[in-house]
């Protein structure tokens, strides 16, 4: 590549960067961070917010560094008075049309706009500031949109359309009236939004915020008649630490458990345990389908965003989805049946609170078809990692000083196969680990690690020979990639047996409920990759790394469920899906 390098000067400093770099990238190479707002590498490269403007020698106006191609011999100035004045003017203009209620805004702690204003030393706004009323869309179960705080960076539009191929929001109208909304002003809850929440994760301000259930959870904890069980998902333990200054991706499992106890939850179980159960069920289902040659290929069903996507956009393929409920729902279901019966607690007195990296889980807990035979919903509240972090901070718990504690027994033990569920490829690998042993008859000479399904690429194809059966697998993250794979299959260009799909790029580690990272932080740190690495490190450290080896799961089947995919399991652990319209016109 060295022949494809170019040389340029950033503020007098010579740098060599690959041809095709932008001025922004070249500046980073020179150790200069040019501020950005609308820019999101690869997803949103519009040059529209004009915060990243720089002077280029010989150029007439200012250039947007995020999209301006660096060229050999170019001289760039990023910190002249002309540049500073322009950025300041632009930011003042943005602020003049932004509903500023910073102390009471959810994004108060991590608002990129606020950060920028502080960095640029904005102490007044020379323009008349619009007196804006909130413009709320609260129709979706997972988020609130408030256009009065929207700065029209369009990062949400880009992730929804490009990464997720859902495209339920767009810029509408034009000029000063331009705003982001769904077609014909419908609420997000009324259109084919899959509730993945990636738009929220992309929003630099408080225009898109999560719906929160903290108050209800606190009330349940305070209610002595309720037995409140908390169940965190695999990816939460490698995300939560971000909020408390831990290195990105480092597992804080032990401290997390300790914090949950201190918040007053009666039991701290682990969704990883249910992930092991999922493998028992889904693995059995897959083997059954392969043998019967029916409903193939089989798609995983752990991800509620993916499920809703299929219901809206590929209702004709719902049979190809595994009938397994997600680990969250299996967990809640088993808490309110198996655990309740075992402990002699009335299921209606149990409150199950899940901690999820995910926003679609807030919708999943309300899916009526998953109501248990005892009348209870499996999970009562689904909190995001961010909500948990707020509860911890709000309770004054000094997270970094907490001791490591262990999950409560019976529904708390898990294997390495379960914890990797949080990364794209994890469900696939966990399934392969168990399937290989089951199909081979014993675990001698059977591989434990399936390297080809790991990593952050959006589409990973791999073929394995397990127990004499050839298994064509595809591991997908990001719904746009899923759509690509489905279309390739429909066109006869690709064929698989087993396909894992996670709606969020990189899997649950990159879920929209995780602590926020700005595009700049994500440019400097591979956030999702580090979190996945944290999960694989946990996996490495576990004594048992195949789901069927989990003693508590063995006990579950021996004492309660009987066979995987048996009659009892069918009611508690499996579900059906509902076709949904794309446009409800």
């Amino acid at each position, binding site marked *: 590549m060295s022949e494809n390098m170019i040389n340029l000067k950033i503020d007098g400093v010579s740098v060599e960067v690959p041809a095709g770099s932008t001025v922004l990238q070249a500046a980073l190479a020179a150790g200069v961070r040019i501020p950005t707002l609308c820019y999101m590498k690869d997803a949103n490269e519009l040059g529209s917010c004009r915060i990243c403007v720089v002077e280029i020698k010989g150029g007439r106006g200012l250039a947007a560094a995020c999209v301006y191609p660096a060229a050999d011999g170019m001289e760039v100035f990023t910190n002249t008075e002309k540049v500073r004045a322009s950025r300041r003017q632009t930011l003042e203009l943005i602020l003049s049309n932004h509903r500023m209620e910073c102390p009471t805004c959810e994004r108060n702690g991590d608002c990129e706009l606020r950060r920028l204003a502080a960095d640029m030393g904005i102490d007044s706004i020379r323009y008349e500031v619009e007196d804006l009323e909130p413009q709320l869309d609260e129709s979706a179960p997972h988020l609130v949109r408030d256009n009065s705080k929207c700065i029209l960076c369009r990062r949400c539009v880009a992730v929804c*359309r490009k990464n997720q191929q*859902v*495209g*339920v*929001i*767009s*810029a*509408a*109208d*034009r000029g000063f*009236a331009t*705003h982001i*909304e*769904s*077609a*014909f*002003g419908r609420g997000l809850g009324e*259109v084919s939004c899959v509730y993945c929440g990636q738009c929220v994760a992309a929003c630099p301000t408080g225009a898109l915020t999560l719906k929160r259930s903290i108050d209800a959870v606190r009330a349940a904890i305070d209610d002595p008649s309720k037995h409140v069980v908390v169940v965190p998902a695999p990816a939460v333990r490698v995300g939560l630490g971000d909020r408390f200054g831990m290195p990105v991706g480092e597992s804080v499992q032990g401290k997390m458990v300790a914090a949950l106890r201190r918040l007053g939850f009666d039991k701290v179980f682990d969704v990883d345990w249910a992930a092991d159960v999922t493998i028992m069920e889904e693995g059995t289902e897959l083997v059954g389908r392969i043998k019967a040659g029916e409903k193939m290929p089989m798609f995983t069903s752990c991800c509620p965003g993916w499920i809703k996507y299929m219901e809206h956009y590929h209702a004709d393929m719902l049979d190809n989805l595994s009938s397994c409920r997600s680990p969250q729902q299996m967990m809640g279901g088993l808490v309110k049946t198996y655990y309740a019966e075992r402990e002699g607690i009335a299921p209606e007195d149990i409150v199950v609170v899940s901690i999820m990296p995910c926003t679609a889980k807030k919708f999943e807990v309300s899916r009526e078809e998953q109501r248990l035979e005892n009348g209870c919903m499996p999970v009562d509240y689904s909190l995001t990692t961010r909500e948990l972090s707020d509860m911890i901070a709000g309770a004054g718990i000094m997270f970094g000083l907490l001791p490591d504690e262990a999950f409560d027994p019976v529904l708390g033990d898990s294997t390495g196969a379960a914890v990797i569920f949080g990364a794209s490829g994890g469900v696939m690998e966990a399934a392969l680990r168990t399937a290989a042993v089951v199909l081979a008859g014993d675990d001698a000479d059977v591989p434990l690690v399936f390297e080809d399904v790991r990593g952050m690429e959006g589409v990973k194809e791999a073929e394995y020979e397990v127990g004499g059966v050839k298994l064509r697998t595809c591991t997908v993250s990001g719904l746009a990639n899923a759509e690509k794979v489905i279309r390739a299959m429909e066109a006869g260009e690709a064929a698989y047996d087993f396909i894992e799909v996670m709606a969020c790029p990189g899997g649950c580690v990159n879920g929209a409920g995780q602590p926020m990272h700005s595009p700049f932080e994500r440019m400097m740190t591979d956030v999702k990759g580090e979190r996945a690495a944290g999960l694989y490190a946990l996996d490495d450290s576990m004594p048992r790394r195949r789901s069927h080896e989990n003693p508590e799961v063995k006990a579950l089947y021996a004492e309660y469920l009987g066979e995987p995919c048996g009659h009892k399991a069918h009611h508690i652990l499996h579900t059906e899906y509902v076709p949904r319209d*794309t*446009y409800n*016109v």
Partner: protein
Amino acid sequence: MPNCRTVVPFSGTPEQEQKLREVIARYKGTQGPLMPILHEAQDIYGYLPEEVQATISEELDIPLAEIYGVSTFYSRFSLNPKGEVKVSVCLGTACYVKGAADVLAEVEAQLGCKAGSVTSDGKFSIDADRCVGACGLAPIMIVNGDVYGHMTVDRVAGILDSYRGEVE
């Protein structure tokens, strides 16, 4: 945001839908089919209601929100039907310097609605045009395609009255 919501119930006919599908079929597979389809769909229906845009969305495999974004960007695309009598006043520079703003204000006052909207009885709609290119006759008012040049405020009421009969 007068151009962001459809406020009248949809009343498309099967014949219109047939035509729409023909138009879509004609452009599907060509480069950049959306704009011509929206133009012709508006010719068929008189406006671009949600039902029509949803059909286009499905056929072209473009999200409805995106088509909506396009249809609200361009001022000629309307999400609501125009009045039976379409009144427009040119606000090009040549007309403006010769008093077109006063003419428009008079039209608005006479009809009791603002440029870009329709009277409550659906009979008249007003638009402010950006130069129709007949600057020699400035200022210009156009009613249902009839051009009135050298307009003055005084003439507005009489001209509008002559169209009232058409919609009674």
